[in-house]
């Protein structure tokens, strides 16, 4: 297998704002390869956005962020990079789609010229070629009458169209990694399916690497090759989408899947909630972060940090961070 396009190793991210300081990501490693879709799943506040966008320096104004570990892309370590170099890497290497296109697109700027500029800056096209590329990109993302839409402002487009424009903008610089941060959350249900189909189509055509940040299990099952389940800044479970969705190991993953209506046949009769609330991330206590909500928690869970252990999987190892389940169900897989 060739080198991953984005590989994060032992990443720790602390966030500081005047009101809170949070250990948002706690020793996480993952990698994305070209042509593959990695879904990062977790509740809001689990650190899934910080984990993917933090190393790129894409944090809201007013947030101070401390990074440890490494995050490699294009042969460089983003953690050690100066802000200036990082900014040029962001456009060319990574394209980002945000949750709410209405607020993520600048209300004072026309859609098309922004795309054309990206094409000019990062793909080195002439102004005329960049414009043509922008129009064809709008057409490719399924925006009708792209010549007309080129000169439109965001408020003149519907939410679904705006998200398509956002995708076009993210692709305009021809990045190697597309990071989609909850790309369908702010959209209507029917539009959600269209956007997911569009992302899959782009993935198939371009062979680009996609990181899909979501809490929508449906979107994961549609798009993802591999899944990372994040809980309170730590990886609870990871593996191929099929393994994780059909035979989850970690009690949190099981709870998460059980809370999705009609997803697994054995809970078709109704959904279950995970009792309790996510932990207070301003303080990191010893042991497993899920222990307080876990039905199977034992005393040792509160003193020992669980490590990711292989429980199966074919090409993609299926790993979970729950020694209790692995012991009780005899899942340890040491090959």
């Amino acid at each position, binding site marked *: 297998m060739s080198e991953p396009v984005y590989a994060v190793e032992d990443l720790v991210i602390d966030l500081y704002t005047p009101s809170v300081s949070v250990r948002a990501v706690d020793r996480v490693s993952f990698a994305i390869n070209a042509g593959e879709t990695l879904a990062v799943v977790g509740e809001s506040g689990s650190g899934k956005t910080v984990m993917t966008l933090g190393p790129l320096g894409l944090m809201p*104004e007013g947030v101070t962020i401390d990074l440890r570990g490494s995050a490699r892309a294009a042969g460089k370590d983003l953690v050690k990079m100066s802000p200036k170099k990082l900014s*040029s890497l962001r*456009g060319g290497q990574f394209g*980002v789609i945000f949750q709410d296109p209405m607020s993520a*697109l*600048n209300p004072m700027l026309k859609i098309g010229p922004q795309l054309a500029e990206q094409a000019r800056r990062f793909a080195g096209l002439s102004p005329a070629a960049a414009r043509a590329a922008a129009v064809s990109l709008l057409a490719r993302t399924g925006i009708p009458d792209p010549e007309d839409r080129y000169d439109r*402002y965001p*408020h003149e487009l519907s939410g679904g169209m705006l998200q398509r424009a956002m995708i076009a*903008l993210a692709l305009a610089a021809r990045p190697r990694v597309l990071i989609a941060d909850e790309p369908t959350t702010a959209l209507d249900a029917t539009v959600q399916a269209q956007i997911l189909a569009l992302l899959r189509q782009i993935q198939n055509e371009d062979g680009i690497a996609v990181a899909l940040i979501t809490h929508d299990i449906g979107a994961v099952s549609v798009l993802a090759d591999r899944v990372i389940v994040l809980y309170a800044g730590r990886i609870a479970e990871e593996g191929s989408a099929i393994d994780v969705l059909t035979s989850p190991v970690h009690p949190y993953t099981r709870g998460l899947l059980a809370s999705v209506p009609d997803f697994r046949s054995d809970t078709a009769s109704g959904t279950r909630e995970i009792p309790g609330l996510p932990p207070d991330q301003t303080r990191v206590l010893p042991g497993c972060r899920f222990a307080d909500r876990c039905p199977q928690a034992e005393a040792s869970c509160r003193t020992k940090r669980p490590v990711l252990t292989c429980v199966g999987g074919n090409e993609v190892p299926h790993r979970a961070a729950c020694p209790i389940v692995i012991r009780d169900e005899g899942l340890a897989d040491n090959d």
Partner: protein
Amino acid sequence: MRRMFLRRAGLALLLMLAATALTFALVTAAPGNVAALIAERAAGPGADGEMIARIADELGLNDPLPVRYVRWLGDTFTGDFGVSLRTGKPISEEFAERIPVTATLLAGGGMLALFYSLGLGLWGATSNGRFADRILHGIALIGASTPNFFVAALLVIVFAVGLGWIPSFGLYGWTSWILPCVTIALFPGSVLARVVRVNLQEAMARPFATTGFAKGMNRGEVLVREALPNIAIPYITTFGAQFTLMIIGAIVVERLFGLNGIGAFFIEAIRFRDFVGMQAVLTLFVVFFVSVNLFVDLVAMLVDPRLRRARRA
């Protein structure tokens, strides 16, 4: 958009009429017997009742107030503002001499305020929270708090008295305009610099700024190309308000630097109970303020794509 603008323009016209009517009522009727005042000025303290009555009759001061207002309005439209009770000259002549002075002051001060506020505000925003930002913040705060007559005094002490570079009084060539223009630009410029700073910081915290960073822009580019267009509307609105407020600065510096503009005329009219002159200047001010506000509305409409869109619909 045209309909919206025409509506605004109609309202502005109504506002001008109402405001001039109110000032007319206040200035010509409330203070007391203008005819007696005129007679006194003409004949000294010995003006008799007969003379006062004749003057009142000639000037139509015995007519009911609405009649007088309509007559005044008609005269004003034809450019006849009456005769100054102080100088005895037609006020239109005074205006012809004085308006260029005040207009030059406002134009110079407005330009300086524009450059100063954008420069200071942008510089402050690029150095967000750091030492330079605090310094600039302090400059803007003090600039927006120092009385303009004190600013003028300090400028005179340093540049005219201390260094002897520029004249401190009267008009001797273009250098005479420097101190007055700087004086009146400091306050609005500082207020605007704060508007730039606060709004830029707010814009930088909005999601589209993060999109800008994601597009591969550095901080400066995001600031100028993503955030700056978004402060255009608050900036234009505040600029309009501050531009009209600069008339107060003009009143002060015309007096301080001995410039014969509208402001100086206004103050003299007040001090010497020249009610005709006062009414004329107030009318001029009302027209100026309402038109500037209307113009600002129009520019804001042209700048805001959300409002501009209405034109196509």
